[in-house]
């Protein structure tokens, strides 16, 4: 599963030191625990999971914003840790969840979009202005909106600014961390359509992190399901949504409330215990919540097993 990808994540671990209380001994919390995957050029890898499962930490490691504790991330065949910031910025760019806090409130929209070009330092002013104009138009913002400040724009328009800023350097990869979670549904649809159009026209590769499975199903070509720092299932989108293999994936999919009246609220079967990343259970880390756990799940960590269109980590998945 490694090698040949535009993004190649190999055995990445990332832990944080956490101290609870003044005199308590520091503990290590593994936010990501041995994650490996590759993303082919032009693909969209959706990453789903509950809050605290490590999906945003994974995004930050791949962006090179956070060094991994172990393992390595290769982008376009080269280690991201060894690239300098400018080089990294030309290759991979983020779009974050909250367009209210990710844009500098004291700068005009066009200056925000020009910033990555200015930071590269090798372009003339006229060239920068030309590319900013083209980019603003590309994401559906007018020249007049380019003169405004972020506070004068709506949430959807601000997210367009964030996308323009991410794309102005013509990167090959965009890491979208919950790009539409803060937006209303009508605006969410506009932004998802824009991202799909840009990917098609510019040949982009996306890492698309979301807790909204319906959105992931719509945009991703492949989906990774994270639970307590590990990828427990990774499948082609149609295979995952058609026949989920891991019990956790099944529970997640069952929890999606589609707008269909009369179906009621599903029972997830997950029980009331919540996962605690500082106290990972032995064996399969999902077993305390798993409705179908067997004896082996309590003591033995499950191995990665091949299933149609991908792989899953579960004792009950037949190879």
């Amino acid at each position, binding site marked *: 599963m490694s090698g040949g990808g535009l993004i190649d994540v190999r055995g990445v671990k990332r832990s944080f030191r956490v101290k609870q209380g003044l005199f308590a001994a520091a503990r290590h919390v593994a936010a990501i625990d041995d994650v490996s995957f590759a993303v082919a050029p032009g693909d969209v890898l959706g990453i789903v999971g*509950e*809050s605290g499962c490590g999906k945003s930490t994974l995004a930050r490691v791949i962006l090179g914003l956070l060094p991994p504790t172990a393992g390595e991330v290769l982008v376009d065949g080269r280690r991201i840790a060894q690239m300098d910031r400018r080089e990294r910025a030309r290759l991979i760019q983020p779009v974050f969840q909250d367009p209210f806090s990710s844009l500098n409130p004291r700068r005009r929209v066009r200056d925000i979009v020009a910033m990555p070009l200015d930071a590269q330092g090798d372009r003339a002013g006229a060239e920068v202005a030309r590319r900013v104009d083209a980019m603003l138009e590309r994401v559906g913002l007018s020249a007049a909106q380019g003169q405004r400040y972020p506070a004068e724009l*709506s*949430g*959807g*328009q601000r997210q367009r600014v964030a996308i323009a800023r991410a794309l102005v350097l013509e990167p090959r990869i965009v890491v979208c961390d919950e790009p539409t979670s803060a937006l*209303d*549904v*009508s*605006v*969410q*649809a*506009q932004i*998802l*359509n824009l991202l*799909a*159009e840009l990917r098609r026209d510019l040949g982009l590769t996306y890492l698309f992190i979301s*807790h*909204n*499975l*319906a*959105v992931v*199903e*719509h*945009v991703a070509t492949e989906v990774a399901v994270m639970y307590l720092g590990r990828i427990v299932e990774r499948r082609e*989108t*149609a295979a995952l*949504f058609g026949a989920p293999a891991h019990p956790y994936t099944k*529970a*997640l*999919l*069952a*929890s*999606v*409330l*589609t*707008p*269909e*009246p*009369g*179906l*009621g*609220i*599903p*029972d*997830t079967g*997950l029980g*009331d215990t*919540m996962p605690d990343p500082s106290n990972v259970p032995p064996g399969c880390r999902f077993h305390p919540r798993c409705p179908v756990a067997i004896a082996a799940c309590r003591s033995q960590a499950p191995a990665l097993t091949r299933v149609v269109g991908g792989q899953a980590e579960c004792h009950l998945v037949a190879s």
Partner: protein
Amino acid sequence: MTRLLEVEDLEVGFGDVSAVRGASLAIERGETHCLVGESGCGKSVTALAIMGLLARNATRRAARLSFDGQDLRGLDERGMSRLRGDRMAMIFQEPMTSLNPAYTVGSQMAEVMLRHRGGTRAAAMARAEDLLGRVRITSPGMRLGQYPHQLSGGLRQRVMIAMALMCEPELLIADEPTTALDVTVQAQILRLLLDLQRDLGLAILLITHDLGVVARVAHRVSVMYAGEVVESAPVEALFAHPTHPYTSGLLGCVPVPGKVARGAPLGSIAGVVPRLGPEFRGCGFRDRCAHAAPACAQTIARRAAGPRHDYLCRLEPGLAGDAR
């Protein structure tokens, strides 16, 4: 059925902005009524106006605002605070900001009971423990002594629900109660609310922007846009025959696994929700509507689209809904 809450022609203004412009809704006992709409449509302001919790600079007017036959318009702050927490209760989106971080779960819950019903602190604590068990919090006795920061988001929201139920209210207003939660926890909390509703005969006014939640829990739905209820219908009728162009547009924006072709663009509504002043006339949606015509600037009459199904648009039923 008797109507527990009746709101007619509610108007709420903040200076020169009209947040609610003539909204009407009625809730029957034991019914779940969903108020759905996008940010800024006036749904939360409507709830706060009903509860008498509007900010001081707000103005509230209504042709009718009654709870179980009692007119709320003439009630002073003391009268309202006797009702709030007792016969009508409210839960909010972010439980961390609604719970007091300096008091234990138990003492906050007991206070509701002591304030409205009196009795001993021990009795109130026993009631709190009983309710924490009912909202399926494990080891409720231990939780009574914990502080809000020691609980997870899902647990906090359960505490909020249990606290709202302390005095057995007849009406529960829930403003985006599951929006901050994971989908798995959301499903658990919604199941819990529906179970409690069945057991206690609770009427619920559920405010949400999530059409998935609406479809699964509502008996009746009111769609708000720019301060008006643009369509109101039983849940099946609303999803089967959306009649206002905004309702059908909104339904088209939602990706449905297995229903919407992947790769195909989602339906979307261009533009943003407008802020309207008191002088505004006509349809608030006309700037974003594909069916807009000069007649839309006139005052629009409410029309019937079916039994208990009405909408606010100049078009005949079936003309606007075909956008989907």
